[in-house]
C-alpha cells in the first residue's frame, strides 16, 4: 500500500459505507490524488514529493472522512457516540446512587452497563467496520434500549426526585436508541431506488420497529413480574425468548422490507401476534 492508498484508507476509516460504496469512494479519491500527483510531476516535482504534495493539498483525512460520513449518513455516528456515552454516564451515576442511597453495590450490573456502553462507543469509533453491519449494530443498540428499559424498573427503588431524573434520562436514551435503529435500517436500503420506494421502506421500518418495541416492552414487563413472584429461574427465558426471536426475525425482515416494504408490515404484524401468543401457549402446555 503506497502513501496515497494509506491516506485514502484513513479517510475511509471514518465512514460506514458498505463494500461497494466504499470501493466507489476509494476509486474516486484515488483518482483525485493521482491527478494532483501528476500535476505536481508535470511542474517538476519528483514522484515522492508529488505524492506528498498531493496528500498535503487533499487535506486532513479525519475532516474529509467525517465530512463524507455526515453527507451520506447524517448524524448517525454522532447518535452512536451520544448513546454509548449516555449509557456509560448513566452507569456511573446510577451505580453511585444505588451504592450510597440504597447501600446496595451491584458490581455485576455495573459490568453489564459499562460493557454495553463501551460496545456502542467502540462501534462509533470503529464505524468503518461496524457501520456496514446494519443488523448487528441494530441488535447492539436494541439490547442497550432493552437493558435500559430494565434499568427503569430498578430506578423505582431510588428515593425521591432522583428516580424522576433517572426515568427522564432513560426515556430520552431509549427514544434515541429507537431513532438510531430506524435511521440505521433506512440507510441500509439501496439509495439508488426511487424516492417513493424509499419512503415506503421508511414507513415499513418505523412500523416494524414499533412492533419490535411492543414485543420487547411486553417481554420486559412479564420478565419483571416473574422475577418478583418466582425469582431468578429458567421461566424468565419464556418472555425473554420473544425478544430474542424478534431480534433474529428482524435480520430476515430487513431483507424483506427492502424487497416488499408493505408486505413486510403484514409479516411483521403476524410475527407480533405469534410472539405475543406463543409464551402463553408454552406456559399453559407446561
Amino acid at each position: 500500500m503506497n502513501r496515497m492508498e494509506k491516506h485514502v484508507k484513513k479517510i475511509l476509516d471514518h465512514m460506514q459505507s458498505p463494500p461497494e460504496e466504499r470501493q466507489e469512494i476509494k476509486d474516486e479519491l484515488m483518482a483525485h490524488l493521482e491527478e494532483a500527483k501528476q500535476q505536481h510531476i508535470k511542474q517538476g516535482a519528483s514522484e515522492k514529493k508529488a505524492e506528498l504534495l498531493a496528500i498535503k493539498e487533499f487535506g486532513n483525512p479525519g475532516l474529509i472522512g467525517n465530512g463524507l460520513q455526515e453527507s451520506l449518513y447524517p448524524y448517525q455516528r454522532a447518535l452512536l457516540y451520544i448513546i454509548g456515552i449516555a449509557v456509560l454516564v448513566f452507569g456511573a451515576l446510577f451505580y453511585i446512587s444505588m451504592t450510597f442511597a440504597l447501600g446496595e453495590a451491584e458490581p455485576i450490573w455495573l459490568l453489564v452497563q459499562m460493557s454495553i456502553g463501551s460496545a456502542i462507543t467502540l462501534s462509533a469509533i470503529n464505524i468503518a467496520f461496524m457501520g456496514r453491519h446494519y443488523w448487528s449494530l441494530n441488535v447492539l443498540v436494541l439490547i442497550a434500549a432493552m437493558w435500559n428499559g430494565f434499568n427503569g424498573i430498578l430506578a423505582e427503588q431510588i428515593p425521591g426526585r432522583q428516580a424522576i431524573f433517572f426515568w427522564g434520562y432513560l426515556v430520552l436514551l431509549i427514544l434515541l436508541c429507537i431513532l438510531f435503529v430506524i435511521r440505521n435500517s433506512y440507510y441500509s436500503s439501496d439509495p439508488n431506488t426511487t424516492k417513493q420506494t424509499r419512503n415506503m421502506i421508511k414507513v415499513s421500518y418505523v412500523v416494524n420497529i414499533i412492533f419490535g418495541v411492543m414485543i420487547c416492552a411486553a417481554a420486559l414487563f412479564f420478565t419483571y413480574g416473574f422475577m418478583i413472584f418466582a425469582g431468578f429461574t429458567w421461566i424468565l427465558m419464556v418472555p425473554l425468548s420473544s425478544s430474542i426471536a424478534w431480534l433474529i426475525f428482524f435480520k430476515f425482515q430487513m431483507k424483506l422490507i427492502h424487497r416488499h416494504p408493505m408486505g413486510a408490515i403484514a409479516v411483521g404484524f403476524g410475527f407480533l401476534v405469534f410472539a405475543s401468543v406463543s409464551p402463553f401457549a408454552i406456559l399453559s402446555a407446561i
Partner: protein
Amino acid sequence: MSLKMKNILFLSIVVAASTLLYWTGTFAEGPKGREGLDGSPALSNDGEEIAFPHYEDGEATLYTAAADGGEAEQLLERETRQSFVRPAYSPDNSKLLYIKEWRVEGKPYSQLMMYDFDKQQSQPLKDQDHYIREAIFSPDGKSIYLVKADGYVDQPDGDGVIPDGYDVYQMNRSTYETEQLTNEGNYNLSSLSTSKKGDHLVYSLYNGEDLIQQLNVNNKKIKTIMPEPGYESGAGEAPIINSPSNAPDGETIAFSDVAHSRDNGTFQYEVFTMTTEGEDVVQVTNFHEHVSEPVFYPDGNDLLVSVDRNFAGRDPDYEYWKVSGDGKERKEIIVEIPE
C-alpha cells in the same frame, strides 16, 4: 491519533473509571436492617405501662416505658439474628408473654416465651417445633391463647418457606396441655384479643375478604362481625379490616380500615370502633397515615394506636399515640430509647 490508539485509550478510560467506581462503592455502608419502634405495643392492665419491641439493624428487643412516655427500660439483651416481638401482659402485670423469632436458611422459626418481672428472667413455654405468631393471657391468667401455624408452605417467589394454616389454641398454664379452639387453617389469622370477661376471643383473618371473627370460648361457636351494611370503606367495595381489638367490656370492637387514599393511590388507614353487632361505626382517628393496632385503655374509652409514617415505604416508621374514644383528643407517647 491512530484508530488502534483511540480504541486502546477509550478502553483504558472505561476500565479505569469502572474500577474507580467499584472501589468507591466499597466505602459505602451495606443496607442496614430495620430501625425504630414496632407497631404492636402492649398496654398493662392498669394502663400505667407499655411494652414494645424496638428494632436496631433488623433485630428487635423489648422495652417498657410509662404509658405517657419518657425514658424506656430495656427488658431483654439483644441477641444476634433474633427478634423479640408481640408482647402481652398477664392480668396482674407480673409477667409478659412475647415471641422469639429467628430464621435459618430461609425458614422462619418462633418460640413462645414468658418474662417474669419479679425474677427478671425469661422461660420458654413451648418448644421450637411450633411456629407461634402471637399469644395473650386469658383474663383469669390460668391459660394462654395462642395463634399457631400447622406447617410451612413454599414462598411464592421460591425464596424459602413461610408458616401457613394458623389456628387459635388454648394452653393450660399448669399442665401445658394445648387444645385447638378453631379450625380455620388460615394463613392470615392474627390480632387475637379478649374482653375482661374472657368468654369471647376476637381475631381477624382473610378468607377472600377481610373478616373479624368472634369465638365463643365455651361452645366454640364463631360469629363474623362486620360493619353494618351502610358502612362505606375507603378501600372501595370491600373493607380491608385488620387488627381488631376487643374493649374491656366486650361490647365494642376497635379496628383499622382504609379511610382515604393519597394522590398516588396509597391507602391511608384509620382506627374505627363499632359494637359487636357491627353497628354504630365511628371513625376515631384522623391522621391521614397508616393507623393500626388499637388497644383499649382499662377505662374502655381511650385507645393506644400505632401510626406508621412510612407506610408502603421500605421500612415502617412507627409512633405511638393515645387517642380519646371520640377522637377529639390525641397525644403522642414519646419514648426515649437509652443508648
